[in-house]
């Protein structure tokens, strides 16, 4: 049981760290693309024509692929002023509920993102920009990010439950 839990934690850690690295690369790509656009426009009177559109896709990658690692590092903001002052057993129960609310919400986001991506794929939707990029590709990044985020919350939920049962 413990070995299984450890393996899950390890798999989720690798997924989160990996996704965060990809989103770090997206930051670099974003800077390169925009600087290239500015230089081309200012000095050569030309344009990459896809700067605005792809900046948006990179931004989506930056955001959604880092959600899980952000959660792992406890960076997502919550108001824990009251929670911190509660007695231990009660606090753990509330933490369990908090995890459930988060899991339910992110699962809903995942569903919504998944449906949107599936429809884009089904109807062959492409971007309005000149690149005609099939929209399901950047949208899939959103879905992958949300899926890893959901798994990360699930993992943390199981660990909290584990602590709770060990304590009682």
């Amino acid at each position, binding site marked *: 049981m413990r070995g299984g839990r450890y393996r899950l934690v390890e798999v989720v850690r690798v997924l989160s760290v990996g996704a965060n690295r990809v*989103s770090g690369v997206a930051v670099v790509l974003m800077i390169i693309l925009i600087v290239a656009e500015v230089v081309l426009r200012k000095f050569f009177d030309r344009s990459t024509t896809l700067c605005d559109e792809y900046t948006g896709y990179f931004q989506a990658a930056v955001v959604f692929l880092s959600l899980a690692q952000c959660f792992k590092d406890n960076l997502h903001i919550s108001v824990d002023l009251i929670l911190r002052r509660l007695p231990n057993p009660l606090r753990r129960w509330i933490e369990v509920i908090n995890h459930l609310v988060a899991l339910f919400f992110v699962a809903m986001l995942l569903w919504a993102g998944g449906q949107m991506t599936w429809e884009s794929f089904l109807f062959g939707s492409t971007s309005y920009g000149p690149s005609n990029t099939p929209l399901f590709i950047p949208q899939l990044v959103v879905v992958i990010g949300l899926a890893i985020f959901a798994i990360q919350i699930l993992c943390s939920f199981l660990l909290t439950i584990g602590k709770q049962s060990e304590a009682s």
Partner: protein
Amino acid sequence: MPATLITMSLLVLLPMGVMVAVALGSVGALLLYTKGGLPALISGVGFTVWNTGIGFTLSAIPLFVFMGEVLTRSGIGSLFFRGISVLLAGLVRGIIPYTVIIGSSIFSALNGLSITNVAAFGTLVAPEIQKTGCDKKLVYGALVGAGTLGILIPPSVTALIYCGMTGVSVADVFLAGLIPGIIMSFVFIVYVAIRLRLRPDLAGNEQHFLSDQITSLDRLKALLKLLPAGVIIFFTMGSIYFGWATPTEAGAVGGAASVLFSIGYQRRVDWRMLWGCCLSAAKITAMIMFIIICAQIMSMGLSTWGITSDLVALLSNLPLPRLLVMAMFGLMYLVLGCFVDGTSMMVLSLPFVFPIIQSLGFHPVWFGVMMTMFIEIGQITPPMGLNLFTLQGVVPQERMEVIWASAMPYVALLILGVAFFVLVPQLVLVFVK
């Protein structure tokens, strides 16, 4: 009625410690579900997640955060600290607090977060307090107080979020923050000067700080070292002002320039540090954007039920003078700022407050600056003040009460500042075309 109840459930979810983003999004999702059922929920949420996620305005966030991270981690803060203190040496007593305020103000023009200022200067200042015996409360106050200028003086991540949520021009809100930022910086300097005039002993013994005789050549060297920072500030802000580039483009160019600056300063390419900045910028962006996306879901839920328009109608029909409504909002933000962090406070309230502000005829750019100043106050009001926590992270041995007390004068000065700009809004709108 059910919609109001659902919205009120925020008051249960937030104190429970549910992630702020999740609380906002859940309320929005419930509102959408109860109005239009599952199909409305799923399509509404999908639409909001995607369109907010790829928005060009908000894509400036990782760029400006990256820029600030590079400048902080490469140790350019120390260049500022040494440079400015050398320039001030012999001219004033109390070099440390003055250096912190002037340094934070200039550093604010290079990064868009307040905590970056506190972190960049806090580590440098702590040992100097020990050496000189300078009053630590005076310095801590300057650190957290002037640190808040990070979000007022452009570029500002807070302004980006405000504009991303309201559709107001980023360039306008950036430029509008400049004059209030400079005025507040000046007010902080005057405050320190008055304190030192009344109690000269607070400055400590500065001979330990700058032991050598400072020559004119030293001052010239210090000025030259600070020059690249001035060039970056000129190009990022100048390009926005003259319309050469959008704020997002300015962010990317500023990010690239800060990398070159750090390479020049460190005289080597520190790949590990730069990669760390990318990862950190990505995580901070994810944190901020998750709240914004969820707030947009809530905003959508509120408008489907017509809650926002009802509230606007209610408040607009009350026989209240508009300044009183503004004062009520101010009071609300003061209280809220004690318990909720700035970004959350803004995204939580904007869906309600912004339509009311518009209906009362206040200038949306001006209100963006006021909102930023409310957040600045929130960042240094205990118990939940981001800058206060950041400073304690830098000086862990210090009691939190000492840091709280040191911030109080700056809370008062910022409140006075808000009151002043409410009465003289023209000063905020000088550069707005």
